[in-house]
């Protein structure tokens, strides 16, 4: 860890890490600070996991431009960073004749945005492709370039690649203020000390408004957290073939029913504006809304097949689109502002934020170049980040080879998702290792299955205590304050009444 960095990135979601990864190609000392105990654990860990074609954003907006620019980048990115990605295409499904005009609108918008590979298909064709789709489907818009990924997998892969190429990541490190001299950002203050830099990048997601205000930039900009609730359905019961959107409403893309790279089906998200930037709770009303929304597309859904519930928060901003003549007030901010020097400002990165992340990262590089920052490419830049083996995805011979190398790959810890002890230990020794149960869960998919950790938790507390060299009572779900166990059975606290 240095005191002085070329670039400090504030915020560790997919945008921050993708930016770090793209910047790591150049001879720069890069630091990324993250206030949570693990990377990508807020918005990036809880979303619909889609790579959008780009027919949805308002034409001319930065969202539209970056979405469409980013979409084709995913193929190479997935090969290099080796995260789960499937370009399966996506569908907007019209139910009933009255919804068909909406498909026309989207098709037109897509064309305006430069989206390739869009097709109008009939209700019959839709039913052929997805037998479970609502029989009342009147037609659909099929976009070849759509896809799905493992969003946390993308984030960790980008982070590891950045680290492989020399970047530093500090977790549990919260931004407090900028150090500004002569109207230029010279450093940042955090809860763990001061760090100097030439450039600071605001990638703070839900808190990007507070960060930019500290730099005196855009005092009117405000992030309103928008909560989205989700239900996950058991892949053993049925699997959808692709990604299905309803026709969109004014506020959001609506409640989807989509396959995932895990094989499960997700329903969601809802869209509820909040005041509390930390409220990720599920609500009775929200969960019901999710299920009803899903049923509109897939009537055969059975609520008994739900195996998981979660909620994510979107960083919805109120920035007006900068392009002339475009009437839109919730655009991305990707800029080098005039108000203060040494600052790259990213804000309001909600959907299509995940999709756009590689284009945003590339744009940050371009902005820095345009601002005169010298960017010299590293001759030994390593674009490929080798993924660690997933036992469940391997064939018999590969599994045997793995166990031969390390017998701990022979011991299954999570039965529902077939996750082995070897994989857990590999993660604990990875470049950006997990320090909590949820951290391992996000990396390996352990505990995400039918029993939701019922079987694996006692095994995990033992393994984590051993590998992290801590007491079992020190093993946490998601950082300090969320320890799983409170004491040993026989260690009774002093004050005991009769």
């Amino acid at each position, binding site marked *: 860890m240095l005191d002085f960095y070329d670039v400090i990135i504030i915020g560790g979601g997919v945008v921050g890490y993708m930016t770090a990864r793209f910047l790591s190609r150049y001879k720069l000392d890069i630091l990324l600070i993250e206030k949570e105990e693990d990377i990508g654990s807020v918005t990036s860990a809880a979303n619909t996991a889609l790579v959008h074609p780009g027919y949805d954003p308002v034409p001319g907006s930065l969202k539209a431009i970056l979405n469409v620019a980013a979409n084709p980048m995913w193929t190479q990115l997935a090969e290099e960073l080796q995260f789960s990605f499937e370009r399966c295409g996506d569908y907007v499904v019209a139910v009933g004749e009255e919804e068909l005009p909406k498909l026309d609108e989207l098709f037109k918008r897509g064309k305006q945005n430069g989206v390739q590979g869009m097709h109008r298909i009939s209700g019959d064709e839709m039913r052929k492709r997805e037998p479970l789709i609502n029989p009342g489907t009147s037609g659909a818009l099929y976009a070849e370039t759509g896809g799905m990924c493992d969003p946390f997998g993308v984030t960790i892969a980008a982070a590891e690649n950045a680290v492989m190429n020399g970047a530093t990541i500090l977790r549990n490190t919260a931004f407090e203020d900028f150090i500004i001299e002569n109207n230029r950002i010279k450093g940042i203050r955090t809860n763990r000390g001061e760090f100097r830099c030439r450039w600071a990048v605001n990638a703070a997601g839900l808190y990007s408004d507070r960060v930019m205000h500290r730099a005196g930039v855009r005092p009117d900009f405000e992030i309103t957290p928008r909560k989205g609730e989700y239900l996950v359905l058991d892949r053993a019961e049925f699997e959808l073939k692709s990604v299905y959107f309803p026709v969109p409403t004014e506020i959001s893309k609506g409640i989807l029913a989509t396959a995932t790279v895990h094989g499960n089906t997700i329903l969601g998200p809802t869209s509820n504006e909040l005041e509390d930037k930390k409220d990720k709770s599920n609500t009775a009303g929200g969960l019901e809304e999710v299920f009803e929304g899903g049923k509109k597309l897939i009537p055969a859904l059975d609520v008994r097949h739900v195996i998981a519930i979660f909620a994510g928060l979107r960083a919805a901003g109120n920035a007006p689109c900068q392009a002339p003549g475009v009437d839109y007030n919730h655009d991305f901010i990707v800029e080098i502002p005039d108000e203060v020097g040494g600052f790259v400002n990213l804000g309001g990165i909600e959907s299509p934020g995940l999709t756009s992340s590689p284009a945003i990262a590339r744009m940050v590089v371009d902005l820095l170049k345009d601002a005169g920052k010298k960017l010299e490419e590293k001759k030994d830049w390593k674009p490929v980040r080798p993924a660690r083996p997933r036992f469940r995805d391997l064939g018999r011979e590969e599994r045997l080879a793995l166990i031969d190398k390390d017998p701990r790959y022979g011991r299954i810890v999570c039965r529902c998702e077939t996750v082995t002890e070897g994989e857990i230990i590999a993660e604990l020794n990875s470049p950006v290792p997990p320090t909590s149960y949820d951290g391992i869960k996000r990396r390996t998919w352990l505990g995400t299955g039918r029993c939701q950790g019922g079987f694996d938790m006692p095994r995990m507390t033992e393994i984590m205590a051993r590998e992290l060299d801590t007491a079992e009572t020190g093993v946490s779900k998601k950082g300090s304050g969320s320890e799983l166990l409170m004491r*040993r*059975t*026989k260690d*009774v606290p002093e004050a005991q009444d*009769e």
Partner: protein
Amino acid sequence: MNPTRNASGDLPREIICVACPKGCRLEAVRENGQILVTKEGCKRGIQYAVREIEDPRRMVASTVRVSGAMHPLVPVYTEEPFPKVLIPKLLKKLQEVRLDAPVQMGQVVIRDALDTGINVVASRNLN
């Protein structure tokens, strides 16, 4: 309906009988030094209710610490139903037990616990 005190000043008590799984609700009260069971009850039920008032007992199962074994605890239990009123004291005693591996099923862990004549024994082998 409020229960009324009898001549001895005792209130009738509702007891759920668990002599068999049916779980009948009985009512029992101490009168003139005797225990009367009213409100239904078969023969086993009456026996159970009388015992519940005079000398309630329970099988007690818990764990004790063991060192050098595969697990840090070994399960133990009372060989016979134990006086309910002494259970808190028994649990305290079990807190203090420290065994060493190997443990045998049936091994006496506390002999004649609290002078009841009842042993606490290990439920299983543990190496």
